């Protein structure tokens, strides 16, 4: 017997069969039950643990149907068009019961025309008209009212005129609606179920496979099946999930993403091979499923009659392969942000997400940091042509600016010499400062402005250093100097 804490002491949450015969009922107070039989054993219930278990079982139940919905303390599966795969509805129920029994769970299973009827039949035995009104999943208050009115079964409600029922019970939890849902007069879609189940290929094994290559071998058979489905629906996969169902009810899964929609078996196999090898069989897999859970429409594709590789697709494939092996966070494309701060302006985005071949266009924020007054003027007929803005930015940026010691003639003047990583650099040439104010709308008010200098040391190496703050700006003591980038 399990209990939860109620307002007036523990309330019985669930009972074993033995406890039920001794008068314990879910919803009753523990003290009342103990009064009937003091020998009852009560343990605290664990609703979160139960929910987690149900959620795990919901994934596991994907072995029978692609549409599984968690419904309170139960699961709802849409088995339309599925049952024949298991040898009919009766065989399906037997299979489910056996599998749940193997997990040590007693499952109450019912298949019905409507979800509401299945819910009721799984909990109350008998024909629909003979079911108690509680089987309609109504509010307990309404159930109590109905019972007081003498309407004890669903059949009694069906016999009543609809209009009278609708007038009497007008609340949100309408009795007529509940009745209609059960009798199939009104649709009750499984809410979690997508309208369009994702393309999916499943493989059930005769015996649990414990060897490491099991997943890879299953993949060889799953990919052609999935590709056939994708072709049929004119889709290309953007993300694929390989799921291995273990005998003990746990599930191992891993997914790969692609940069452009693809349904080429060879490419998909190459992407998934590593993931398949990494799935741990533990006690053995007895079923596999390969789901394209993110797809995009892809027309029937043949590039051209002659084999002419399309650049964009090749790049996308390269990105896929790199991302799968090195991780999507390590394969990046530049993405400019509207910001004056250099480290913020030149952002990166995972290449697998950003549009292929896009490249991000010209950086918008680069020019912004350069005030016209500070930009050197180049009007001479000879000499270097006017520098474009990009030349003013270093080709490399340190991930985190490093503090340097700077010797300067005057605190606000140009730097003369700096020490970076314990090496002394004499500054031979210097250009600047280029002042970048803090972004007050984003940064804390204590952020200090930066004065950037392009400096060249005696050996010709050029660096981008900045002084953070000014003397007397009221935001700290003496300004600090930082090394931020290297020019190429």
């Amino acid at each position, binding site marked *: 017997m399990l209990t939860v804490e109620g307002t007036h002491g523990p309330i019985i949450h669930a009972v074993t069969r033995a406890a039920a015969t001794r008068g314990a009922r879910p919803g009753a107070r523990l003290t009342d039950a103990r009064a009937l039989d003091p020998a009852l054993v009560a343990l605290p219930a664990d609703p979160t643990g139960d929910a987690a278990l149900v959620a795990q079982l919901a994934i596991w139940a994907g072995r029978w149907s692609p549409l599984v919905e968690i419904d309170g303390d139960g699961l709802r599966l849409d088995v339309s068009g599925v049952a024949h795969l298991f040898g009919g509805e009766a065989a399906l129920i037997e299979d489910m019961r056996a599998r749940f029994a193997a997990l040590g769970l007693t499952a109450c299973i019912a298949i019905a025309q409507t979800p509401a009827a299945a819910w009721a039949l799984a909990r109350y035995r008998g024909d629909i008209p003979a079911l108690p009104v509680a089987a309609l999943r109504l509010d307990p208050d309404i159930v109590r009212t109905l019972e007081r009115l003498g309407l004890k079964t669903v059949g009694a409600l069906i016999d009543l005129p609809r209009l009278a029922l609708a007038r009497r019970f007008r609340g949100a939890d309408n009795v007529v609606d509940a009745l209609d849902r059960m009798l199939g007069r009104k649709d009750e879609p499984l809410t979690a179920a997508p309208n369009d189940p994702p393309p999916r290929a499943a493989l059930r094994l005769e015996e649990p496979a414990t060897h490491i290559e099991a997943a890879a071998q299953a993949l060889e058979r799953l990919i052609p099946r999935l590709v056939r489905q994708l072709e049929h629906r004119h889709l290309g996969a953007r993300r694929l999930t390989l799921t291995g169902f273990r005998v003990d009810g746990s599930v191992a899964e891993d997914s790969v993403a692609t940069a452009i929609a693809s349904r080429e078996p060879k490419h998909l196999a190459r992407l998934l091979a590593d993931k398949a090898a990494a799935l741990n069989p533990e006690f053995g897999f007895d079923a596999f499923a390969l789901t394209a859970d993110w797809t995009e429409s892809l027309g029937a594709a043949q590039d051209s009659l002659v084999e002419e*590789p399309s650049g*964009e697709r*090749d*790049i996308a*494939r*390269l*990105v896929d392969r*790199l991302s799968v*092996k*090195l991780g999507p966070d*390590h*394969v990046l*494309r*530049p993405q*400019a942000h509207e910001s004056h701060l*250099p480290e913020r*302006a*030149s952002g*990166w985005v995972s*290449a697998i997400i950003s549009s292929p*071949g896009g*490249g*991000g266009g010209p*950086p918008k924020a*680069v020019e912004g940091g350069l005030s016209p007054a500070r930009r*050197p*003027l*180049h009007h*001479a*007929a*000879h*000499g*270097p*042509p006017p520098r474009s803005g*990009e030349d003013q*930015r*270093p*080709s*490399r*940026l*340190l*991930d985190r600016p490093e503090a340097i010691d700077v010797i300067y003639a005057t605190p606000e003047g140009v730097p003369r010499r700096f020490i*970076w*990583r314990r090496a002394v650099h004499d500054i*031979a*040439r*210097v*250009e600047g400062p280029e002042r970048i104010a803090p972004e007050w709308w984003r940064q804390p008010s204590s952020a200090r402005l930066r004065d950037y200098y*392009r*400096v*060249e040391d*005696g*050996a*010709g*190496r*050029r660096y981008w250093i900045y002084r953070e703050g000014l003397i007397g700006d009221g935001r700290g003591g003496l300004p600090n100097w930082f090394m931020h*980038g*290297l*020019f*190429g």
Partner: protein
Amino acid sequence: MSRVARGLSLVAGGAVSARPSTPAKAGAQTRVSAPLLALRARTGPLPAQGHWDLPRPECSTLSELFAAHPRDGGWAGFLLAQVGTAKPLLWVQDRMAIRESGRIHPPGLPSQNLIHVTARDAKDALWAMEEGVRCAALSAVIGELWGDPRALDFTATRRLAVAAERSGVACWLVRLGGTANLSGARMRWRIASAPSLTHPLDPRAPGLPTWDADLFRARGHPPGRWSLTHEADRFHLVAEHRDRALGEVERLTA
């Protein structure tokens, strides 16, 4: 560098105004044969109108570039001047290279159309480079490796070179803080920054970047050392910086 450029007192090809208004692609220009070039570079100034072409491999292949110092980012300018921007660029950096000399900064690069790969170690970096080199839709693959990793041996470089030649994608192996051990690269450069040219308007500001480029091994080219700058899609020889003032005066009056 003294071996090459001593006595070279004129900015080669420096007559900026004498250049055709629409400079042709470097590859289309008449090539000065490398021996002649070396001779000229040693013996005297190049004629003001003469073109000078950087020694390049006959086909796209693996080139190795040693940064003279890990904290010297100058090589990037030299390298990027030779890389096309029409197609995307794959830039691989290993973790140590990023930590020691910074991550690439797209606003400072000629093209934003690139894919950046952060590799855990040299093995991953070489794998990513090889994947990239096989992809003909890239304009070039640049891989930066720190030090002398064990994974970078003759076989690895040879594989890259063969793959690059087969697919026609130029591959640059950049070595930061490494030593020039056995390698299958067809051209091996050592690039150091040199003091930049004088800024025409502000003598205190850095001008056009220059490099001391040392080609110490190349297939089909004699090795050589040059002081170079890059301007308007072309490389130009510059006077060694000890003679710079004289050279630049001549340049401005040319």
